[in-house]
C-alpha cells in the first residue's frame, strides 16, 4: 500500500501538484487519470523519487520515503519496478540481457539461475522467442512487454506504469492491461498506472483517481464511473461520442432493471 499525503510540487512558481492525497492499495491496479498536462507523470515521478516534492509525505507500507537516507532509498528501490512511457529499454543490450540487467546488478544468484529467472519473466509476457533480438528490432508493443518483464524480474512489491499503452492499438493495449492486472493480483503488488485510455479505465480500473490541475477531483472504481455526478470527470471521460452513447445505453438498462 502506498499513501500520498498533501503532496506539493511546483515548477518555476507554477503549482503542478497542489496538495494531492491518495491511497493506493495492494493487489489492485490503481489508475491515475487526467488530461494531458494535469500532472500525472509528475505525481508518479514524485512517488518513485525521480522528482522531489516541496511538501508532503509518501508512505510505502508505512515507511516514509522522503525522510529516508540514500541507503534506505536504495533498498526500497529494489522493491520497485517501473514501466516508462517510452519503454526505456537499454538499446545496447538484447531483450534477454535487458530483463537480466536488474538481476545482474542486484541478485547474488548464479548466472544459470539469473538466466532462468529472466527466461521465466519473458515467458510470462509471451516473448521468449524474441530473447536474442535488440530493442530496436521489435515492435512497440513487444518493447512494452519486455519492459514489464524487466520490471518484474526482481519480484517487486510496487509496480509503476506511465501510460503503458500509449501508442498501441486497442488489441495490444488490452493484452498489456491484462498482463499488468494479472501480475498485480498474482503477486499481490501495489500497482499504479497513469493512463488516459478509457478502455483501460473500464477494463482494469480497480481504483481510479482523477486529477484535475494538480488536485484530486474524484476517486472511485470503474463501476462508479457511469454513475458519477462530477461534472469535470464526466466531461473528461465522456469526451468521446462513443462513450457517451455507451453511457446512455447503460443508464437505460439501469432504469429498466429498477422498473422491474
Amino acid at each position, binding site marked *: 500500500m502506498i499513501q500520498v499525503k498533501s503532496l506539493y510540487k511546483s515548477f518555476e512558481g507554477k503549482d503542478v501538484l497542489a496538495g494531492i492525497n491518495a491511497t493506493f492499495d495492494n493487489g489492485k491496479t490503481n489508475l491515475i487519470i487526467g488530461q494531458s498536462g494535469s500532472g500525472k507523470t509528475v505525481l508518479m515521478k514524485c512517488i518513485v523519487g525521480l522528482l522531489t516534492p516541496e511538501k508532503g509525505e509518501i508512505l510505502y507500507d508505512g515507511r516514509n520515503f522522503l525522510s529516508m537516507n540514500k541507503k534506505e532509498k536504495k533498498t526500497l528501490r529494489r522493491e520497485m519496478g517501473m514501466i516508462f512511457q517510452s519503454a526505456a529499454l537499454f538499446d545496447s543490450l538484447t531483450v534477454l540481457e535487458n530483463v537480466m540487467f536488474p538481476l*545482474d546488478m542486484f541478485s547474488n544468484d548464479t548466472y544459470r539461475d539469473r538466466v532462468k529467472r529472466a527466461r521465466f519473466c519473458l515467458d510470462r509476457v509471451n516473448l521468449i522467442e524474441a530473447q536474442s533480438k535488440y530493442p530496436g528490432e521489435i515492435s512497440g508493443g513487444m518493447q512494452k512487454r519486455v519492459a514489464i518483464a524487466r520490471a518484474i524480474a526482481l519480484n517487486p512489491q510496487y509496480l509503476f506504469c506511465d501510460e503503458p499503452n500509449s501508442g498501441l492499438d486497442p488489441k495490444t493495449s488490452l493484452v498489456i492491461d491484462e498482463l499488468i492486472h494479472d501480475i498485480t493480483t498474482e503477486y499481490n503488488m501495489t500497482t499504479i498506472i497513469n493512463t488516459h485510455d478509457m478502455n483501460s479505465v473500464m477494463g482494469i480500473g480497480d481504483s481510479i483517481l482523477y486529477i484535475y490541475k494538480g488536485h484530486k477531483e474524484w476517486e472511485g472504481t470503474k463501476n462508479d464511473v457511469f454513475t458519477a455526478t462530477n461534472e469535470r470527470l464526466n466531461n473528461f471521460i465522456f469526451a468521446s461520442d462513443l462513450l457517451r452513447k455507451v453511457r446512455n445505453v447503460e443508464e437505460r438498462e439501469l432504469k429498466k432493471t429498477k422498473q422491474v
Partner: protein
Amino acid sequence: MHLYRQKRLLLQEIVKTMMIRPITTVGKYIMLMGRTFARPERMRMFFKQYLNEMVQLGVNSIGIVLLISFFIGAVITIQIKLNIESPWMPRFVVGYTTREIMLLEFSSSIMCLILAGKVGSNIASEIGTMRVTQQIDALEIMGVNSAGYLILPKIVALMTMIPFLVIFSIFSGIIGAFCTCWFGGVLNAEDLEYGLQYSFQEWFVWCSFIKSVFFAFIISSVSAYFGYTVEGGSIAVGKASTDSVVMSSVLILFSDLVLTQLLMG
C-alpha cells in the same frame, strides 16, 4: 529613467551569463563527478562495461588515429624540408623537427583534439539519448547509480587506451615520414633516420603520455556531463554533442598550455 532600467537589466543579464552560469555549471560538473567516482555496485558489471568501452572508445579510434597521423607525419616532413632547406642547415634537421612536432604536440594534443570530436560527440550523444529516452531514469528507479554505471567505465577506459593511441600515432607519423623518403624521394632515408634519433629524450614521450591521460579525462568527463544533463529531445542531444566537442577542445587547449609549462618549463 527608462534607459537606466534597461541598462540595469542588460547588466544583470551579462552577470548571469558571464559569471553565474559558468560557476553553476562547474559546480554541477563537480557534483556529477562526485557521483561518478563512487565504488561500483557490481565489479562484474563494471568490468564488462569497461571492456566494452575500451573497444568502443579506444580500439575503434585506432583507424582514424593511424590515418591522420600517417598523413600529418608525411606532410610535416615535406613542409619542413621545403621551408628550411638551406646549405647552412644540417640535413638531419628535417627528421629532428618532425620528431619533435609529432612527439611534443601532434600525437598528444592535436590527436586528442581530433578524438574530442570523435569520442566526445559519441559519448555525449549516447548518454544524452539515454537521458531523453528515460533509460537513465530506468537505471535510477532500479537503484543503480546511473552516473557511476555509465560514466566511470568510459572515463577509465579512455584513460587506459589513450597512451596506446599516442604510441600508434607516433609510429604512424614516423612511417608517414619515411614514406616521403621511400616513395616521394623528398629526402634521404638515412638522414631522416639520423634526425629522428638525434638527441632523443625519453622524458618527452612520458610528457606525451601524461598530457594525453589528462586530455582523455577531459574529453570523457566533459562530454559525459553534457550528455547526462540533456533536457528535452533530439535537438538537445545534438546541441549537447556539439557543445561537448567545443568545450572539451577549449579545455584541452588551455590545459595543454598549463601542462606543457609545468612538465617542460
